[in-house]
């Protein structure tokens, strides 16, 4: 590659990053603007952050979303780890095509289809079996665990593809019991992928608007549902402040995940 070609390539890369980060940077900067307007800067202020903490509905929606995200991420991690292990380590089994196919379909399925069909299931199940008695945190967590497990399974499969199965085979040759192999060889190998998968599942859940709008009930308004209701009416400086905190938290979580995921050969 010539120097000029390389320079052009890096220029495009720089523009790409500018495109990705410009809108986010604007939100962060204007979250500290004393004026609610975007067209003028009237001085540094933390008033929108203060207003955020005073907003009772917002704080309780955030608490609900965090609880749903933690629960659904944990379920998704167990299910995704099992699926990833099965696909990467068990060579032939009945249902392999169905399992791999369903997970790949879930990765790309438009959220609105997952949301509407799951709601129809919950409504029909309530009518036929009396369960779930009402829609809310539980049904949202089930829905989130379902789509997030596909992401966890992908991460687990990728991690196992990098690891030599000989480690597990050697432990078996030395007489270790399957449960011990799983606990002392396979799971430690998987730990970084499981941690990264849990974090990804958590962020996917806490960010989901579309699926939650369908499967939630009257008593359970998640954070994205509340944010959507307020930004639909126009600009909301409190949302700028919330977004800034959100981005900060995600950046920190991602740093942790990269640290964990990056330790490949230790």
């Amino acid at each position, binding site marked *: *590659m010539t120097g000029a070609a*390389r320079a052009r*390539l890096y220029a*495009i*890369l720089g523009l*790409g*990053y500018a*495109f*990705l980060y*410009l*809108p*986010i940077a604007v*939100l962060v900067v204007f979250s500290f603007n004393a004026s609610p*307007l*975007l*067209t003028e800067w009237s001085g540094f202020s933390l008033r929108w952050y203060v207003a955020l903490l005073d907003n009772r509905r917002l704080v309780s929606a955030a608490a609900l979303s965090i609880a749903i995200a933690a629960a659904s991420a944990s379920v998704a991690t167990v*299910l995704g780890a*099992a699926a990833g292990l*099965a696909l990467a*380590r*068990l060579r032939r*089994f009945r249902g392999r095509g*169905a*399992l*791999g196919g369903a997970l*790949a379909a*879930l*990765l*790309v*399925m*438009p959220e*609105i*289809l997952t949301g*509407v*069909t*799951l709601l*129809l*299931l919950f*409504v*029909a199940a309530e009518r036929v079996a009396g369960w779930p008695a009402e829609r809310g945190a539980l049904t949202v967590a089930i829905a989130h665990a*379902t789509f997030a497990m596909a992401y966890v399974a992908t991460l687990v499969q990728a991690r196992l593809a990098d690891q030599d199965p000989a480690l597990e085979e050697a432990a*078996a*040759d030395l*007489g*270790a019991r*399957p449960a011990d192999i*799983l606990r002392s060889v396979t799971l430690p190998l998987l730990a970084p992928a499981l941690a990264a998968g849990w974090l990804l599942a958590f962020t996917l859940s806490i*960010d989901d*608007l*579309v699926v939650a709008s*369908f499967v939630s009930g009257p008593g359970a308004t998640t954070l994205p549902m509340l*944010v*959507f209701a307020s930004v*639909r009416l126009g600009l909301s400086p409190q*949302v700028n402040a919330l*977004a800034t905190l959100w*981005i900060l938290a*995600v*950046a920190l979580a*991602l740093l942790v995940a990269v640290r964990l995921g990056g330790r490949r050969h230790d």
Partner: protein
Amino acid sequence: MSPLWPPGLRFLLIGLPLAWLAVFFALPFAMALAISFGAPSDGAPPFSLDAPGLAAWRLLVEDPIYADALLSSLGMAGMATAIAAVIGYPMAYAIARAPARWRGLLLVLVMLPFWTSFLVRIYAWTALLRPTGLINGALQALGLIEAPLQLMDNAFAVQLGLVYVYLPFMVLPLYASLEKLDPSLEEAAADLGARPAAIFATVTLPATLPGLAAGALLMFIPASAEFIVPEMLGGPDANLLGRAIWNEFFANRDWPAAAALAIAIVVLLAGPILLFQRLEARR
């Protein structure tokens, strides 16, 4: 020697996720198919299956609004995917050919927005594009325009939003396949006198076609029934599939029509989804 994966453990590893997916992924679509043959009613839930019929399906075929939504959605998603490929390919290439110690950081910078709220990122664009937004404010302050430009509530803004949110989905698989491509192949072609365009067309592009296909499908399929982007940036007249389902459901309360629409979209997307599954299985 004990078997590495005894039957009990195998059963658990396969059965647990498969059972969950059967109940919470396959069954819901079967339920939607059944309800698409029902009729809306005033009860709770607002549909009835007492006299199954094709009313919802007939509505989908007869009212041109749905065919219109389908065509615009596929067109928008296809165009946005093509634009994202044109932007994403050189980005992925630059990252793959950057010094090894920088690649991790450059990739994280691509992924970070994907981990950040989808809703918030689209909301950020409304702050830039609206008539009283930052771009119009800046252009007016500079005296370049007198009246604000209509930058949102149109097809341009929807396309921009789709490219913006799905760009990381394009870059990551492209990077993965570019990273595997040995640069010495391109160097050999150059040493033999091939021009850069010829090298790209005969060496680089064919070798990275699976990555390009994976990125394109990873973006096109969800983008074709996206809800948030047209809702926030498309204006009241944007008639797209994701919005059509939402409106049938929440505004018209016609659940059989929403169910029929959902099934129709899955059937239409079955080809791209199957292709994506095959690419994933080969990986």
